[in-house]
């Protein structure tokens, strides 16, 4: 086996996730970190760590390439976000003679241009949402606003991550929405090209995981449903998509494979679709990278996606996957964000004073948290992901509920209570949700049973009392070391 040294050009839970896969395969790894991430968990998970400077350096191609040069890394895994969908980065990595662990830069480039992706997918035979295949001219033709079916979406051609998208409910609002989308696109992607796309109403978000060797072999690893979104950001994802009937599931998989094959797709990718009420599905875009929600696919297929990605980068032949992969049971992921649902989802910051992660059957936590860690608002608010597996969707929901109740993050506000309210709602439980479900879902203030709250008031006063009176608090461990406690327990067991 060829040896590669993998530099992970990312931070947070995904950097830890990729470094874990490197460790399991036995690949030497390199982390990069900015000044504020000096104490971040991913720095300790790698064999080596290289400082790249101030906070925005994760986006700096030259800084990442320099770190690769310094460390002698031979391959770069971009994770998601930051430079993951930057075709220029993918190209320059390969120009340096390094392996880019992802698709060819031509694929990244074409899929990054939503208009090119639409044209390519239509040619490959995929159903594409009605809309313009060319950029909107700066001066909107007079008759165009009249011809359009409303409501209509104005989308940035360079868009991603839900940015640069505006909804125009009628012709009157169209010019203002085009203007707003252009502004946001310009700021986010330095490209103000926009186009129009019909709004698929009451849609579900369905996406298909593909893996290819770049030689034309493409495998489909099943689909996910990610309809629970807040402001176009996915919050809860599941696999399989329970709304798909077997015949339809087959069609969606076939469509994704068709596109993957036409692209001679290399590495991991996701083909995203919208599914309407009448079971029509439409191509939206390709995400040419590992995704946040990849673990739900891993849970129901048993395939370690990141490992497969690394093995392909090592030049290993692609593994044989069954024609139609059969998901086992159901998996759900909840994104744990540093956002306070009680104050309008403002980002929260603070020190992680206490941390207890859930465990037990069927629970996986992908996280970059540790006790004592300082959480700032400089980067994405994603702290961790809780992923559960159950023999069916209902069991998985029960398990997620149990796991989220166990998850305790002290010191900063998170969305755990909000997610609990969503998964406990009858609509979510029945599975009858669309991408607009959360628009009307109001988080309730969290409440505690009055008698318990009274005791909690006592608990707080008790703690304050102990602290202020400086009393030595007798504890379970104050008189005996843990070893003594164990010895005592064993004695009690009659050993």
């Amino acid at each position, binding site marked *: 086996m060829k040896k590669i040294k993998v530099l992970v050009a990312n931070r947070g839970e995904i950097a830890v996730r990729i470094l874990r896969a490197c460790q399991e395969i036995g690949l030497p790894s390199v982390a990069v970190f900015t000044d504020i991430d000096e104490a971040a968990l991913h720095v300790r998970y790698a064999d080596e760590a290289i400082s790249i400077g101030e906070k925005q350096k994760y986006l700096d191609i030259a800084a990442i390439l320099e770190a690769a040069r310094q460390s002698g890394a031979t391959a770069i895994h971009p994770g998601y976000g930051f430079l993951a969908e930057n075709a220029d980065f993918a190209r320059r990595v390969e120009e340096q003679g390094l392996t880019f662990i992802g698709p060819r830069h031509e694929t990244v480039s074409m899929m990054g241009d939503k208009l090119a992706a639409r044209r390519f997918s239509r040619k490959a035979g995929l159903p594409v949402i009605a809309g313009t295949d060319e950029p909107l001219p700066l001066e909107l033709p007079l008759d165009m606003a009249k011809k359009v079916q409303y409501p209509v979406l104005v989308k940035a051609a360079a868009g991603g991550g839900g940015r640069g998208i505006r909804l125009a409910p009628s012709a009157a609002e169209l010019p203002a929405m085009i203007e707003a989308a252009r502004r946001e696109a310009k700021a986010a992607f330095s490209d103000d090209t926009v186009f129009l796309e019909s709004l698929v109403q009451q849609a579900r978000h369905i996406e298909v995981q593909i893996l290819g060797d770049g030689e034309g072999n493409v495998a489909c690893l099943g689909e996910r449903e990610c309809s629970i979104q807040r402001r176009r950001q996915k919050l809860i994802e599941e696999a399989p998509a329970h709304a798909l009937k077997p015949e339809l599931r087959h069609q969606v998989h076939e469509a994704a494979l068709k596109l993957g094959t036409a692209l001679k797709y290399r590495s991991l990718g996701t083909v995203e679709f919208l599914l309407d009420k009448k079971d029509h599905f439409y191509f939206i875009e390709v995400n040419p990278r590992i995704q946040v929600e990849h673990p739900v696919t891993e849970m129901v297929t048993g395939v370690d996606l990141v490992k497969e990605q690394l093995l392909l980068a090592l030049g290993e032949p692609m593994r044989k996957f069954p024609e139609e992969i059969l998901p086992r049971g159901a998996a759900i992921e909840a994104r744990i964000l540093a956002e306070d649902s009680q104050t309008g989802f403002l980002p929260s910051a603070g020190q992680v004073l206490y941390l207890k992660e859930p465990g037990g059957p069927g629970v996986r936590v992908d996280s970059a948290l540790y006790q004592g860690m300082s959480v700032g608002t400089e980067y994405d608010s994603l702290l961790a992901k809780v992923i559960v597996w159950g023999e069916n969707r209902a069991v998985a929901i029960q398990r997620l509920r149990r796991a989220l109740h166990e998850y305790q993050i002290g010191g900063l506000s998170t969305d755990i209570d909000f997610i609990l309210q969503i998964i406990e709602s009858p609509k979510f439980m029945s599975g009858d949700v669309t991408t607009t479900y959360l628009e009307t879902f109001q988080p309730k203030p969290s409440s505690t049973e009055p008698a318990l709250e009274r005791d909690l008031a006592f608990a707080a006063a008790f703690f304050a*009392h102990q602290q202020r009176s400086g009393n030595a608090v007798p504890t379970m461990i104050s008189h005996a070391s843990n070893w003594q406690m164990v010895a005592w327990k064993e004695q009690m067991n009659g050993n």
Partner: protein
Amino acid sequence: MSLYTVTIEDRIYKVSISGDHCTVNGEEVDARMLPLNHNGLHMLHHGKQAYEVFLSNQEADTYQMLMLGGHRIVTQITSRMKKHLKAGEDCNAGCLAAPMHGLVVDVPVHEGDTVEKGQTLVVLESMKMQMQLRSPRPGKVTKVTVQSGDQVEKGALLVQFD
């Protein structure tokens, strides 16, 4: 006796702690707190249930509390400690505490009684001296926590009124 005002969201709890004796809003607390380590982790026994509670105070008077196991809240708690009370002094305008260690000789009022300002509520004997503990203001007795013959510690809650 120490008195704390604990605020959870907009709800206010008056907690009194006196040795092993604790009340919340005048009601006896049968909950118990067992510290599990020196970092703020406790076990709270509430009725038949046991919870994990993590407490920390990063800022003065602000306590963050995290409840484990089933119910979960993350709440800011403020707490103030009153000075030990002087004889007859009005503590939070609603209770009478023992100014010193002593023996309760007489409690001439009962729960539900209406009392005038200056009316004797408790007669306490300490160091062979009897003192009349008087009501600081008119009010209605809501709770009498002692009876004749009780030994009380300094700061112990004797009578509550509104």
